[in-house]
């Protein structure tokens, strides 16, 4: 199985963890296509997401490789298993690539002709999307089987942004869906759909997201192996006529979702597992 990785930044922990995890399982990527690390909008977005202190901390960790304590630090502690390498952790995609021997190509836009040409050159059976642009048709149709995405909610109930938070507020069980991407927002055929059981241990929405991202990576690995062995097949999403798209959640509603999480008011539906 020839697998390519699409990444939002060479320093994306999720991108690194997916690449490393697949390589550990024997699916060494044929290449990784990443957006640049320091464009203005990403920087502002990260500042907004992480705050100044964490962003500075992260930047120092990237720029100060001599300090062993920082070398070992990862923002998402649940990715440590996938990112651990010897006595340190992978700090970037290029380190993973050097270790496992695959190329990393930077592009300004994952939909650009250059990016499409590069993907075609790698001729992947499958690509894994770990972040970046909204993908257009010309990219979506390059990998033979398609492009996989790990969505942090059960589909088709909750599509779009802030999906764990919306699951909490709308009374939909927390879950992860591995699906093929199409031109809609999280509307592609489903490979795996699994309820997330670890929410009771979470103390914040950030913690919840981190755990779900880590579990999503395991599910990606499971999906790749399943596709390779031919044991799973995509199932088109039901109920697409209903508009289930959600958007970035306002902080005031996030506060309610956090309370719900802390109070352990979680929905669970038996039998919500692999799709």
């Amino acid at each position, binding site marked *: 199985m020839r697998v390519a990785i699409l990444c939002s930044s060479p320093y994306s922990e999720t991108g690194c963890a997916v690449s490393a995890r697949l390589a550990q399982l024997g699916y060494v990527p044929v290449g990784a296509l990443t957006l640049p690390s320091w464009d203005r909008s990403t920087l502002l977005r990260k500042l*907004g997401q992480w705050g100044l202190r964490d962003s500075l901390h992260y930047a120092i960790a990237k720029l100060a490789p001599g300090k062993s304590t920082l070398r070992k630090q990862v923002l998402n502690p649940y990715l440590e298993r996938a990112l651990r390498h010897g006595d340190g952790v992978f700090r970037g995609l290029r380190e993973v690539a050097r270790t496992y021997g695959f190329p990393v190509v930077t592009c300004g836009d994952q939909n650009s002709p250059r990016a499409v040409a590069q993907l075609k050159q790698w001729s992947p059976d499958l690509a894994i999307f770990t972040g970046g642009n909204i993908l257009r048709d010309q990219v979506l149709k390059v990998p033979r089987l398609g492009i996989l995405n790990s969505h942090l909610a059960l589909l088709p109930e909750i599509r779009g942004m802030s999906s764990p938070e919306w699951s909490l*507020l*709308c*009374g939909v069980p927390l879950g992860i869906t591995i699906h093929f991407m199409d031109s809609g927002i999280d509307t592609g055929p489903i490979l795996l759909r699994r309820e997330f059981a670890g929410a009771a241990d979470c103390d914040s929405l950030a913690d919840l997201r981190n755990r779900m991202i880590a579990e999503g990576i395991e599910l990606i690995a499971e999906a790749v192996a399943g596709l390779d062995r031919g044991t799973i097949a995509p199932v088109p999403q039901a109920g697409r006529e209903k508009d289930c798209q*959600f*958007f970035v959640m*306002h902080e005031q*509603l996030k506060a*309610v979702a956090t309370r*719900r999480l802390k109070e352990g008011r979680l929905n669970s539906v038996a039998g919500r597992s692999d799709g």
Partner: protein
Amino acid sequence: MSGRFERTQTQMNSPESSSSRNFMATRTVRALNEAAGLLRAPQRVVQLFSKLASDELRTTFEHRHLYSYAAATIPVADALRSVVDWILHAQRPDGGIAAYYSLLTGYSELYPEVTGYIIPTLYDFGRLTGDPTARHAAERATHWLLSLQMPSGAFPGGLRGPDSDAQPSVFNTGQILQGLVRAFVETHTETRNAEILERAVAAGDWLAAIQQADGSWTGHAAYQGAAHTYYSMVSWALAQLAAESSDPRHAAAADRNIDWVLAHVQPSGWIDGINLRGHPAYLHFIAYAIQGTLECGILRRRDDVIQAAAKPAWVLLRKFETHKRLLGTYEPDFRGGQRFSCLTGNAQMSCVWLRLFEVTGDLRYLNAALKMNEMLKHLLPIKGRRGVVGGVAGSYPIWGAYQPMRFISWGCKFLADALMLEQRLTREFEAKFEASGCA
């Protein structure tokens, strides 16, 4: 607020017969008149350039992140107080409220239409805060409006100044009717109560009498003589009146017009028939059409009407969430438009989304409205002189096409409404969450 249009168009320029050259000449004369305002009060130059500079800086350096709602820091209560203070400062001793404060010419003449539909806002604020000033202001506004009513029951269009004409206006009568109905409800223990209802019924009777068989309003009392779907606001007022008067004619007139509006809803959600010749479809008017339809549907308990209003409201919600802004104008079927922001239209859409949240329980409406309110609070001037501080500009940036260089009273009204709705609905939502454990 169409009255401002109506006055400038009908007094200075007959829209049905005017050539585009005349129209341009009229606009140029108006612009020169406004600019001359600075000669009469040169101290306004400072605030004018200060606002121009701040909007230029914002649009240059902050534009993409203008709607980064998480950054807004003004508490809702403070913003609300500030906006209502702007309205109170714009009220003259006789009770009428100025249409706008221009950075060039200062306060405008009084505006009956907006004075009318600000009355419910003032009563709501008085109830929310216990502030007697707002209630007193609403009473004075009502008293002033009653003095303007024509023998036919209609109210005049346009602004009230020394050269005011007295042409009856369907839209303005409907908007004022909203205020009269609310004043009646609020003064049920007072002696003037019966008179207010009588006057409101007279206005409603006039509206019903001149309504066309198809449910629209056309002719001399309609803007440009044509039918407009944003007159759904008039249906809303008639539905409010019907609830108090129990007169089936008022309810029937509201239903007839709203049925006519529904016939103009396109598959895209676009409501055709805004029909403003010589002007683009500003978001303000699109939002009027939606808001009037929605509120009428709620009052008349008609799910088909609510669904029809929800359709364009959802289209605009998706646009706002995706692009982090709404355009100042839209082409038919929401295909594009001018890139400035019509802040009044934004505040109206916030009201629409909040009401849809209240009706449907769909949290996505509340989410979008919270973001919109953050953005509008972010743009409120917190410093400056009277007329500026707490004011809602016609456009962002201030030189945008809708009411340029002005802080407008109806913008303040809709933002105050949106903030009060936000306060009430978020409190109710959190209380429900606490009580039931299920959002």
